[in-house]
């Protein structure tokens, strides 16, 4: 069970409360656009329950992985990362419940089904925001965590890109505009958008000298970096896009052509998110 020195417990509690406040702020900052989006409310009760359950189940390892690979705080190991994940979830549920109740999105006359769905879907961006806040608004990391952040493994880098893609895609995936934009685009525009996504991803992370910038060594050629990071990252972005479209019921009864087109459209913010994740996280 949990151990701690009782002598310093009040100090720890205060630090912990600060951490909670920070996480709450993060949940609000990152989830507010979605808390104020009508489609997100509707998803709470229109989304297939099993798909929503799957999203929640996937959320936990995602958050724990963020705690680990993001090196958000000096954590002693995986158990701590898992606790962090659940703390972020608790904060996100609280934030979503409070805000949605104040907005009148949740009411006493609504069924349990509707209330659970509306909060559950908002928990995803909220907990990612809570997790991010503990890093970005937080105190100085431990040396080990700092090292892990500066020099993450290749798998860690790809994971962070997936988180970034998921986060930014989630902002727009529920909206009608994704499908509408996909319908408005011709084949050449789709190719152009895919190429722009790739170019931006590559430029963002591997050409600009910035914090979190991967050290491109002299021996490593452009194509090597492009294939291993940019192309692999974009593939992850597209997988995340198609997963979200499937989750939100935007692939059912729709031609492969239209799904592909919507995937590329949703992949655009996803690519920016993935690239930015390497800069921010």
């Amino acid at each position, binding site marked *: 069970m*949990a*151990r*701690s020195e009782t002598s310093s*417990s009040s100090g*720890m*509690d205060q*630090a*912990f*409360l600060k951490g*909670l406040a920070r996480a709450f702020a993060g949940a609000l900052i990152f989830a507010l656009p979605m808390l104020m989006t009508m489609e997100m409310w*509707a998803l709470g*009760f*229109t989304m*297939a*329950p*099993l798909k*929503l*359950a799957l999203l*929640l189940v996937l*959320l936990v390892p995602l958050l724990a992985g963020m705690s680990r690979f993001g090196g958000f705080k*000096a*954590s*002693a*190991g995986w*158990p*701590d990362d*898992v*606790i*962090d*994940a*659940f*703390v*972020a*979830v*608790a*904060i996100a*549920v609280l934030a979503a419940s409070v805000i949605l109740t104040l907005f009148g999105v949740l009411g006493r*006359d*609504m*069924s*349990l*089904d*509707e209330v*659970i*769905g509306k*909060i*559950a879907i908002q928990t995803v961006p909220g907990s990612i925001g809570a997790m991010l806040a503990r890093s970005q608004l937080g105190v100085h990391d431990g040396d*080990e965590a700092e*090292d892990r952040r500066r*020099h993450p*493994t*290749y*798998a860690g*880098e*790809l994971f962070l890109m997936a988180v970034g893609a998921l986060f930014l895609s989630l902002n727009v995936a529920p909206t009608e505009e994704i499908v509408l934009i996909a319908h408005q685009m011709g084949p050449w525009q789709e190719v152009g958008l895919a190429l722009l996504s790739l170019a931006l991803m590559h430029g963002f992370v591997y050409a600009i000298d910035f914090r979190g910038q*991967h*050290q*491109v*060594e002299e021996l*490593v050629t452009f194509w090597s970096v492009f294939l291993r990071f940019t192309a692999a990252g974009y593939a992850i972005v597209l997988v995340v896009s198609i997963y979200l479209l499937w989750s939100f019921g935007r692939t059912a009864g729709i031609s492969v052509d239209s799904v592909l087109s919507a995937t590329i459209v949703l992949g655009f913010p996803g690519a920016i998110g993935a690239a930015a994740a390497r800069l921010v996280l």
Partner: protein
Amino acid sequence: MARSTARAEARGAAGRKPREDAPASHASAASPWEWLVGLVGLALILAAVGYLVYAAFSTPESPPQLRLSVESVEPSGDGFVAVVTVDNTGPTTAAALEIEGTLIDGDGGVVETSTATIDYLPRFSQRGAGLFFTRDPGRYRIALRPLGYADP
């Protein structure tokens, strides 16, 4: 501890955990409070997932099941409004649901008809609507029926 890109990649590709993952101190950095809030988070996730899975398997797929009822009739402007409640007892959400209310006189003749649209009527939920009439619905029979809906 500085590692090169190539090495980091090789390690990642091999699917192994970085070896510095085992720090000297094995003590948990989490305070009891952190454990407590974490447990609350765990309980919330389990409850939500449990409920959703239960909901998915306990209810067979079927279209929305609607029940309409008149809650009250109030004067409104120059006419009247019939306050209506629509209850969906089915496991499917109805979007753009249109409802119709008709005033019927003693001979079965249609006196007046009004419609209203409900953006979303979630599964197992109810929503309110209002139907306006120029004549007093209190003096006639009000027949309510849903006209149609779209899948969300």
